[in-house]
């Protein structure tokens, strides 16, 4: 089974769970006066879940066929090329983004951002340390100034323990 149909199956599962919540669990807590309304909070979700399940089945069962092979479209990535892709780098960068999300508050904007930009370049294979640190430092300063001073949104610049 092709990847798109597997994903169709997962989406079908999501719609089934959503539909279960809409049809069977949501209405239990509905106040009696709201039950007289023609529309309940679960009405629209019920409609969506039914449609989602129907369309999901169409995809999973492969009822709609494409008449041109996807390889013809240059902008589409064929997932069979996946082996040639640098998945490791992408994974590391995603990990770095998660680390940034977790460190942004405790470590402060400046340390977290300089670290992120330098580590990002390192992951991609850059080894010109001085250039990286200078570029990252300037960019961090400029962005911090723009966000904090120009846009007026608070960004803690230094680590939490330093009190700022």
């Amino acid at each position: 089974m092709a990847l798109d149909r597997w994903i169709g199956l997962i989406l079908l599962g999501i719609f089934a769970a959503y539909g279960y919540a809409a049809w069977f669990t949501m209405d239990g807590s509905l106040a009696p006066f709201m039950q007289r309304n023609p529309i309940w909070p679960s009405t629209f979700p019920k409609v969506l879940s039914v449609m989602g399940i129907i369309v999901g089945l169409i995809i999973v069962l492969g009822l709609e066929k494409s008449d041109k092979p996807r390889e013809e479209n240059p902008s589409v990535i064929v997932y069979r090329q996946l082996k040639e892709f640098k998945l490791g780098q992408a994974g590391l960068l995603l990990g770095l983004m998660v680390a940034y999300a977790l460190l942004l508050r405790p470590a402060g904007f400046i340390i977290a951002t300089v670290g992120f930009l330098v580590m990002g370049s390192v992951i991609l294979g850059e080894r010109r340390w001085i250039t990286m640190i200078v570029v990252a430092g300037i960019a961090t300063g400029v962005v911090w100034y723009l966000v904090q001073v120009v846009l007026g949104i608070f960004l803690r610049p230094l680590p939490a323990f330093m009190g700022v």
Partner: protein
Amino acid sequence: MLEGILIGLQTAFSLQNLLMVIGGCLIGTFIGMLPGLGPMSIIAIMIPVAISLGDPSAALILLAGVYYGAIFGGSTSSILLNAPGVAGTVATSFDGYPMARDGKAGKALTIAAIASFCGGSIGAILLMIFAPMLSSVALLFHSAEYFALMVVGLSAIAAFAGTGQVAKAIMMTLLGLIMATVGEGALFNMPRFTMGLMDLQSGFAFITLAMAMFALPEALYLVMDPSRSKTGQSGDIKDLRITKDEAKSIAPVVGRQSLQGFFIGVLPGAGATIASFLGYAVERNIAPEKEKQEFGKGSVKGLAAPETANNAACTGSFVPLLTLGIPGSGTTAILLGALIALNVTPGPRLMVDDPQIFWAVIISMYIGNLILLILNLPLIPYIAKILAVPRNFLIPFILFFTLMGAYIGQNNATELLLLVGFGICATILRFADYPLAPLLIGFILGGMLEDNFSRSMQLYDGISFIWERPMTLGLLVIACLLVILPSYRARRARARAAGVADGD
């Protein structure tokens, strides 16, 4: 209308807004030139900035400037590197790149800029004529018609997704719609589908979703597939002038494609990509035999046609956004999200309630096009230097701006984790050839769709509004036809082809 134009002029020519449009065009050109980053990613990244401006006209003017700039930038990288940043400029590279290879890069860029300028300006005039007409009709609509109209819009987007793709596009739209139901709705005052998580109480943030759907997958693709980010020196760009004969030969092309592109752009879901390919095909077919041979080898007509058409279509796509409040493309969906965040509801009331926003946007389209022509064109040789920035530096920055955008919008670090999670899902969906724009459009329209649906249900005490209001019924029938027809026709064509193969 004259009064409106005057208000628009007054707003658009304020110093702040002029700076916005200039800044937007430059930023858009700058980033749009980077292969792999399309207008949607750039606008998504710029949204937090636009929203924090606080002034809806300025925000929309900035974003529209970015949009135009990005498309112009995309054409530049198509011409110079044969690396279109967006699908809408793929047709530009057919003739633009051969011209650049012949050492006529400067001329190709000038033709692209002039064609874009004409397409955009003529589009803006048409917008001025048609938008008020459409919005006066739309004022007659009730919530039932609005509901039906949104269903038509969403189905049209799915229908234009192409053969074999309709089910996937509908699936993505529905996924967007169910994501919109998460959190506390306006009508019911009770949290839905939050799974008990406090962070989901207010629903998913639109900016996070926009970043995760467009900017992050693009950046990840650049990482995974280094051949996608063709950066490098683009050679010297000189001699920007075009001859009188060339101008004469492209004039009719520009005229035709401005009209055609605009009307294609108005259709929901069609947009710049279809307009540019169709424009190219039409011009090739009607060209005299001798010129037809030139197409694909550096024909000026072949370059002017898609460039005019895609800009006119971009302008056209503002018609449903401004008059009905229904976005026809991913980009206008993002603009709609930004407007809602600024407490402006686009739709027929926009012209009545906030005429300055409506007209200022239209006027700033002219200004934006003018700026692209007189400011960006001479600067192109310098702006093109950005193509030489090594990707090792570029990619961390793109990722950083994505993170910053989501963070500034919500001021919440959990949002960043959501961004990464959604970004991974979006990348996988793109691998499997699921279109992502319908998801975002569904998400943005979801709230309005449900509100209008609920209101009609309440007014008519049930679903009888569907058959008691002829216009609603008609629109819903159109929506069904839009979804069913492409599959039906494909099936019939296949059946016929199979019959022929059997010796029928």
